């Protein structure tokens, strides 16, 4: 756990970058510091590994005041990832990753093996190990930066806007990768960004800072979106707060109907008299084929002869209410097909069922 206890950073010219900041960064979670430029988020991060020293107050790392630890020793025990990756251009990728193990005096073989293991772990082709940084794309360099920070297996990782210099598609994949890694590694991560969407996507908890280094709110993303503490946070969160919040609501509350699916082998005559306007057709393995409109069915034959309309699915138990809602917009029946992890149909979430689930969410928000 990292504890900020009344931490202030005041520069010689009187500028206050961080003002009496007190908060806790729980072990094994991602805590995001987010805010506009000048809010002191990067300064706060850099005070943890003493790249900047606090003027007042204490920062405790598992109870130990960081000021009592010699900075290089402290930093070797904390992973650090920065915006432009900051790889050493004169060293091969594998040696870049092995920087801290080398500093800690590991033998060459062990350091190299560890570096290779990490390159694999962050999703890089091992052929890149003997290249130099300039031969890699920005996204690849950033992955190397993450691997380098993890090399000596530090319990704490500091990430200072690590993904803001890459294009949106690469950024999204790096974010996914970080979440995947974190699910395996359970590091204590402090992540700084100015991008609220990134904060909400990555953070277990999000600290919103306002200019002058004041903490405006520290909460789980869903709480932040549901109950912003004040106008500043509300404005910073931006538009679509309601719909974005649904990303954090599981689909478990959505009631599924199992009587709306029919196999493609069924005779058309057998379904013609149903009261439902739309039916979901599935193949023999129970995978969705699409929606059919009962009144537009051909005269005879099986449902395989009907041309199915497009459909949307969500993974039951794993996707959010937002994904379920999105799936309804992709099908003409305005219902979403729920599937399991292997893509087999579990049931159908109708518009009524989604309305009920949304009512519960809105009630919970106290809105």
């Amino acid at each position: 756990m990292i504890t900020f206890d009344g931490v202030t950073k005041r520069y010689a010219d009187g500028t206050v970058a961080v003002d009496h900041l007190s908060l806790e960064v729980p072990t094994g979670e991602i805590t995001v510091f987010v805010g506009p430029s000048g809010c002191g988020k990067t300064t706060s991060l850099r005070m943890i590994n003493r790249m900047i020293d606090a003027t007042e107050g204490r920062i405790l790392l598992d109870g130990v005041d960081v000021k009592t630890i010699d900075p290089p020793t402290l930093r070797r025990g904390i992973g650090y990832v920065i915006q432009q990756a900051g790889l050493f251009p004169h060293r091969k990728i594998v040696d870049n990753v092995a920087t801290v193990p080398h500093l800690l005096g590991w033998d060459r073989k062990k350091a190299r093996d560890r570096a290779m293991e990490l390159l694999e772990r962050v999703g890089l082709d091992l052929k890149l190990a003997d290249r130099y940084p300039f031969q890699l794309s920005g996204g690849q360099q950033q992955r190397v930066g993450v691997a380098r920070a993890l090399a000596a297996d530090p319990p704490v990782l500091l990430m200072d806007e690590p993904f803001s210099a890459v294009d949106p598609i690469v950024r999204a994949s790096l974010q996914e990768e970080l979440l995947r890694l974190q699910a395996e590694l359970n590091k204590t991560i402090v992540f700084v960004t100015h991008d609220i969407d990134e904060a909400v996507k990555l953070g277990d908890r999000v600290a919103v800072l306002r200019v002058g280094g004041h903490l405006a709110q520290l909460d789980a993303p869903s709480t932040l979106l549901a109950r912003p503490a004040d106008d500043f946070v509300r404005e910073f969160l931006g538009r679509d707060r309601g719909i974005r919040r649904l990303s954090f609501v599981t689909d478990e509350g959505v009631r599924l109907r199992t009587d709306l699916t029919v196999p493609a082998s069924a005779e058309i005559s057998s379904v013609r008299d149903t009261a439902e306007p739309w039916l979901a057709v599935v193949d023999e393995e129970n995978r969705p084929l699409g929606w059919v409109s009962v009144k537009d069915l051909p005269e005879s034959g099986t449902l395989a002869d009907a041309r199915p309309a497009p459909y949307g699915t969500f993974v039951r138990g794993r996707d959010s209410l937002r994904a379920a809602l999105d799936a309804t917009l992709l099908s003409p029946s305005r219902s979403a097909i729920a599937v399991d992890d292997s893509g087999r149909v579990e049931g159908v979430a109708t518009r009524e069922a989604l309305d009920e689930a949304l009512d519960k969410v809105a009630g919970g928000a106290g809105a």
Partner: protein
Amino acid sequence: MVAGEGVGVNWLIDFFGDPANWSGPDGIPVRLLEHLQFSALSLLLAVLIALPLGLWIGHTGKGALFAVLSANAARALPTLGLLVLIVLLMGVGTDIPVLIPLVALAVPPILVNTYEGIRGVDPELRDAAYGMGLRGGQVLGRVLVPVALPLILLGLRIAAIQVVSTATVAAYVGLGGLGRFIIDGLATKDFPRTIGGAVLVALLALAVQLGFTFIQRLVVSPGVSERQAVR
């Protein structure tokens, strides 16, 4: 022109073809060795002064103004004038009078290029190095110097070529080196000798240039040199 060129070539053949010029205390090998001794010693002294100073100033950012001003001042010194002054003050007899102006000539390019090279390293890189837990000296030795190496070597090369070319002035004050051929040739109107000496100096400067190109290939990481080529 054709006649002139013919004369020049003939002079070179006269000079380099005369076996007497290849032996004895006034022969080409001895003079070349003397020349190399002055030059190498001056360069070594200049490196000992300028390299640590340049590294320190570049790394700490302290004394940058002092470095630039004194380097510019040293550049403005007339080498020959300085040499004559020192000889007048100290008298002849040792190599020291000729070393001082040569060192003064070699210090500025080494100092300025080293300092600029270190200072010019991307601040993000410096930040990353400290953030990984490198100590100040490790940041300098393991990151800043390897990255600034092309510029540092450029400073050394400029200094070496200037020293090798300028070491001919030693002959003015009665010392040896390749300058002897030029000065003595002029004094006795033995033009083959003068031209021969000049050609030897030019060849030596070329050899220094080639030597540095080779060293550069050897010691600069491909990650640094090829990155610059790509840009």
